[in-house]
């Protein structure tokens, strides 16, 4: 009972729920995601999440940026000059030059740096309008074959899409640090902010190792995915999973989802997609396994996910121990000072 770290079989029971339903979660299979963003919209419609800014971010088709108080689902788009095993080279044999990906990244970066929170908020501040003035260029040169840097400079290409969401960790950093009990573990094993309790202290924002939860502007309270706590109460699946056209987002009992994910991973490995991997599936990881886990086709950080997160609570005993030592030293110093000074 009362584990702070490591695998935990009965997460709801550990949180004091007796006779609770099985733990539920999401398995997001990004290999079948078509980037339609239905999850983002369905979530917002159900939960009345506000619109989060109308900026063109230049990050492929991602104009959401990342998860936050006003986006509980976020579809990441990654363009890469490589291909997945079962796919053919997209641009083989074409008169292509070097990839433009570094160039686009270079245009996005200053916008992030200009943003107040370094771009960890949703969207970014748009840079002031500008750019080159209209100009008469005359006739463009007709490139002949070989005029470019050389044919087939870029041949392989793939476009990864992945719908990110709160991980509903087994050991949730946000939940652990919440001083009001607004964040709590439900009987379904999910992690939910109770809006009637949250006083907006903001501790959870820094407690989350995934950068998920955030405080909503003009409201002041923390917000994140609830895994549609109210819908679960009626046996409905969360809005995003229900809408997902290709079943990339699958909802269900966590144990069953883990088995399903293992099968899917094996299937992809059989197809030669060796880079497929599960993320957040492992109960032995730094957060005791995620309630919402993923099948990814590249390293997690490529999708904006931390490669090896851990819940800060893991170190709580040692931190308090160090604090105790420091406190003792502090008291000792004070006592010593007056003992040395004597009575007057």
């Amino acid at each position, binding site marked *: 009972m009362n584990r702070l770290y490591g695998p935990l079989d009965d997460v709801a029971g550990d949180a004091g729920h007796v006779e609770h339903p099985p733990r539920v979660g999401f398995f997001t299979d990004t290999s079948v995601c078509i980037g339609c963003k239905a999850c983002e919209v369905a979530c917002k419609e159900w939960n009345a999440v506000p619109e989060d800014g109308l900026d063109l971010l230049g990050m492929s088709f991602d104009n959401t940026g990342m998860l936050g108080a006003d986006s509980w689902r976020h579809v990441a788009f990654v363009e890469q000059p490589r291909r997945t095993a079962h796919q053919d080279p997209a641009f083989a044999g074409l008169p292509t030059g070097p990839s433009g990906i570094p160039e686009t990244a270079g245009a996005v970066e200053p916008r992030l740096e200009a943003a107040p929170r370094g771009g960890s908020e949703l969207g970014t501040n748009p840079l002031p309008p500008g750019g080159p003035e209209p100009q008469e260029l005359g006739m463009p040169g007709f490139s002949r074959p070989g005029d470019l840097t050389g044919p087939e400079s870029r041949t392989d290409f793939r476009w990864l899409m992945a719908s990110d969401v709160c991980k509903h960790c087994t050991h949730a950093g946000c939940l652990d640090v919440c001083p009001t009990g607004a964040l709590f573990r439900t009987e379904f094993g999910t992690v939910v902010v109770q809006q009637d309790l*949250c006083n907006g202290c*903001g501790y959870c924002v820094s407690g989350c190792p995934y950068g998920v939860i955030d*405080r909503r502007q003009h409201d002041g*309270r923390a917000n994140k995915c609830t895994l549609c706590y109210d819908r679960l109460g009626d046996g409905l699946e969360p809005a995003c999973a229900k809408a997902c056209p290709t079943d990339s987002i699958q909802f269900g009992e966590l144990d069953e989802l883990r088995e399903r994910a293992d099968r899917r991973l094996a299937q992809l490995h059989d197809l030669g997609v060796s880079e497929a991997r599960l993320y957040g599936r492992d109960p032995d990881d730094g957060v005791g396994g995620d309630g919402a886990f993923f099948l990814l086709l590249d390293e997690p950080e490529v999708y904006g996910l931390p490669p090896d997160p851990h819940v800060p609570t893991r170190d709580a005993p040692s931190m308090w121990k160090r604090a105790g030592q420091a406190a003792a030293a502090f008291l000792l110093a004070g006592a010593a*000072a*007056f003992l040395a000074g004597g009575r007057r």
Partner: protein
Amino acid sequence: MPEAEFRSYYGRPVLKAPVWEWKIAAYLFCGGLAAGASVVAAGADLTGRPALRRSSRLGSLGGLLASLYFLVSDLGRPARFHHMLRVLKPTSPMSVGTWILSAFGAGAGAAAVAEVVPRRWRGTWPARLLGRLARPLGVSAAATAPGVASYTAVLLSHTAVPGWNEVRDELPFVFVGSAAASGGGFGMLCAPVAEAGPARVFAAVGAAGEIVAARVMEHRLGLVGEVYREGHVGRLRKASEALTAAGLAGTLLVAHRSRAGAAASGIALLAGSALQRFGVFEAGVASTKDPKYVVVPQRERVDARTAPS
């Protein structure tokens, strides 16, 4: 250090930058001041140093009130401050801190109020009772003060913020040092030189401890040490160290001779302590804005785990 090779999502941060503003840094400082001052006040009370006692008790309450003000006004819903008392969560340093502050506040507050009871009320029985309780309550505040001085370090470290989480072993020492330096410095600033001897010792030990602990902390940090050394934060922390060192020197060399020197040393220590808090705070914020501080150490960990042994 060479630019770390790592991959990210368009250079976007992995973590959320803390939503906390400068007020939280101020809260850290004021809380430390309150803790340090309450220890000095109790010591002064017990050792018969009324001026030091009086100013330190008031300084302690002032620090506490300012600290609470900064904390509450940084909430998204300040009116719901009292929700902090719904639960007592050992896993939440802020919850633990709230209860420590409550215990501390009762003592420190009562002791301070006892100092400022108007003359014409002193004869009344509540005032007499308060006068009698001031000492035990002041001592109780001093007894909880180490908690107040140190819990804020855990509060910062108990996050996913690399700049705070990775200094978890040293930060309590930096913060208690800083608290002692500011509490002692405050006593030096407000009390006559004659009474302020223990305050000087306390401040000197604190300042020395703070400098040493901070040096150790910086030295031990890996990649994320950058945020402590570079840019705006680096300047803040250099200034902090310089002020603390100057205050320490002043404390040791002139404060026992000159009221003005004592005051200047006290101010330097207070300022050094404040800048220390702002520096650490800002370092953490900076460490969330660049994904490398999250990705690189974690990637190294993963690679080390999966590397063929």
